[in-house]
């Protein structure tokens, strides 16, 4: 394990590592954080049971051509998968059985369970459907102007946001469907809600971060990135927005009058392009992963130096915090999956 000299605070403790024999394309923790569902880029849908001292790997099924996305209910036992075979499947974690809830030629690339767990949003190109937990379509929402690049449920609400080329849509589902459009010239790549549900931030293809303060009915943009901004993540207290482009992490402070006119904090930890960036769901830690095979752990509210880092055997492809923020799953391009806990 590589340790940053003079670091203080949290440490990464690797508790498990296993070979998936597939490309870790996406992953989701089970609601109880005892298992991890992994999307294999080459087609396998994998269930990794982490309760035993040695993790057990089970192939649940196959999406011919590659699994694109997976999602788990944050409370409950349902999870969903989609693949290059054009199918979306809804699974029961207890019985390990599934039903196909959507099939077509076009890929369904984004899956998102609502926080309350009763609804699953699925984007298929420009189309957006919402299923209930029996797999029935509850709503077919108006098509987006471009292919939907990211989906996110607005915290503490029944609203669903979708972003893509040309801006964002915000769909209110109850009592009846009502859609508000937030047009913007440019291609939105990510959708990150501040946990207080006030601000929707999006990384842009043209090297900027656009945000809509929905609560205040205003919008603004942070520019100056050299490349596209493919990663955005909010701190649990809704104060800090972490963004990444190329090898740089840029932290914007939304407290007070910020971030307009403020100087962001910059964290330079990687020697190749970042692929993953995620704030701890509860707590103040931030983790980043890059093509330089490194993951770094930060506490950006206190320091621009990393608390800890670890070197993997290949480029980092995914980082997923468990819902309680106590465990971290890391996938790399060699097909390995590592699970970390935190120490001090």
């Amino acid at each position, binding site marked *: 394990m590589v340790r940053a000299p003079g670091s203080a605070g949290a440490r990464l403790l690797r508790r498990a590592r296993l070979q998936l024999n597939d490309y870790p394309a996406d992953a989701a923790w089970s609601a109880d954080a005892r298992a991890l569902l992994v999307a294999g880029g080459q087609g396998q849908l994998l269930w990794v049971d982490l309760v035993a001292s040695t993790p057990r790997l089970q192939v649940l099924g196959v999406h011919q051509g590659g699994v694109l996305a997976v999602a788990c209910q944050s409370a409950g036992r349902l999870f969903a998968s989609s693949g*290059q075979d054009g199918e979306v499947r809804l699974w029961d974690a207890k019985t390990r059985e599934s039903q196909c809830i959507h099939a077509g030629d076009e890929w369904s*690339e984004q899956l998102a369970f609502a926080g309350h767990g009763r609804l699953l949003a699925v984007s298929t190109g420009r189309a957006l459907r919402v299923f209930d937990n029996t797999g029935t379509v509850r709503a077919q929402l108006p098509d987006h102007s471009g292919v939907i690049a990211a989906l996110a449920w607005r915290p503490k609400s029944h609203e669903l946001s979708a972003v893509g*080329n040309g801006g964002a849509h915000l769909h209110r589902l109850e009592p009846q469907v009502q859609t508000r459009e937030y047009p913007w010239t440019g291609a939105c790549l990510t959708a990150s809600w501040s946990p207080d549900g006030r601000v929707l931030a999006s990384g842009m*293809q043209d090297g900027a971060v656009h945000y809509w303060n929905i609560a205040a009915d205003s919008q603004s943009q942070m520019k100056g990135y050299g490349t596209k901004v493919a990663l955005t993540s909010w701190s649990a207290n809704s104060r800090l927005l972490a963004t990444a482009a190329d090898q740089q992490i840029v932290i914007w402070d939304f407290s007070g009058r910020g971030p307009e006119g403020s100087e962001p904090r910059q964290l330079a930890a990687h020697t190749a392009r970042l692929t993953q960036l995620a704030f701890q769901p509860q707590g103040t830690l931030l983790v980043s992963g890059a093509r330089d095979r490194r993951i770094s752990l930060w506490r950006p509210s206190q320091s621009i130096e990393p608390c800890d880092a670890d070197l993997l055997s290949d480029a980092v492809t995914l980082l997923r915090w468990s819902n309680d923020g106590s465990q971290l799953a890391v996938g790399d391009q060699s097909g390995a999956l590592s699970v970390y806990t935190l120490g001090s």
Partner: protein
Amino acid sequence: MSGKIPVTVLTGFLGSGKTTLLNRILSEQHGKRIAVIENEFGEVAVDHELVIGAQEEIFETANGCICCTVRGDLIRVLKALRKRRDRFDYILIETTGLADPGPVAQTFFADEDLREDYQLDAIVALVDAAHITQQLSREAIAAEQVGFADVLLLNKTDLVSAAELTRVERSLRAINATARIIRTLRAELPLAQVLDLGAFDLNRALAMDSDFLEPQRPFEWAGVYHRAAGRHDVHVGADSAGHGHGHDHANTHEHHGEHATAPGGLSAVGVVVLAAPAGAGSAAVEGIAATLEAATALFGQAAEPLAPGANLLPGRHQRLSLSAHDHFGLLLPAAGHWLVYTEHAPLEFGWRLQGEAPVAEREFGSHHHDSAITSIGISDARPLDPNKVNDWLSYLLQSRGADILRMKGVLNFKGEARRYVFHGVHMIFDGQLERPWASAPRTNRVVFIGRKLDRHEFEAGFESCVA
């Protein structure tokens, strides 16, 4: 470079033969596992597991710069495919007939995900020999596709006459001077001519058309005739052209409509007749080489208009006024070899001189352009100052980036043992010092392909770089 997956982009109008070519590539034994991204749906007959349909999606930017425009669909699909890369080692993208190749090419340089994993190999444009003339005159995008291409497959060559084929090839060449032009029937050709070309790879030598890099001439054609002394009939117009190739022009040049004009829409054409120098008669081609400068000088003088029935005379710059069919004369003072230089290719105005065909002929780069897109080539041996080159190219990228589709070049830097090689797509530029000149002649060769390019501007820019 290693480990990057090569990508070939197929462009061309609907009906030009893209699907035929694609099907041939997929069904042929070439040892490659090819994944296909199709923007045009449902036409690939082969039931191939790695054919992926994706609707074209243009990502524009807030600043509106076309040089920053990329293709979102390609980023999305290629990112997903990368995760199963063990199952393929080559990518083919079939664009729609109306797709602009600019954003497609830019995506591979401007998007980091794609730049790290993929290498644009070449842009191949299929051209329907029977319809391209009309398409070029009606659809701006046809010229863009021709202008961007590294390879032009002139397909369906069985549907037009040899003369028309030559004419089409010349108009393609006028737009894009560096693309390799390959004539095909039903898109049949060795796959090595379209795959693994390395057209964007600076490490490979740049193939350039040597003819193009000659100084441009005010004429497009020279022919050597052997004739007796006296008056010979000259016939211009559609009837004499032999193949009636003019009829599809007639549609495209209606706007000339004041009076009937010759095929090609030309109302007049400059001609210069010169005697072959003594001793050059047996080697007629040498006669052309020996009189090139004299002909160029004469074309530089004001032309005398020539009405139908009047005579062409040696040693003058005369201008035949053209209508649908007309007769002129050629009056020769002595028997022997005579050179005829014409402003436009003979096929374009139906030139025919009574008697035997020319004993030798030669074509020169086209200098009149049906299309707003043209090529400018500069070939010059003088050593250049790298700093001045940098200033010039930076200026060009910033001020003309939107108009320049492609640029490439090999440069001779003063005091540098290695050649400097560069290429560009709109504002995206890549250049590096490459292998040494060694015994090869040190010379600069540069080509720009783009819209509204002024040759003098580029020549002056080049001149400013001389060390």
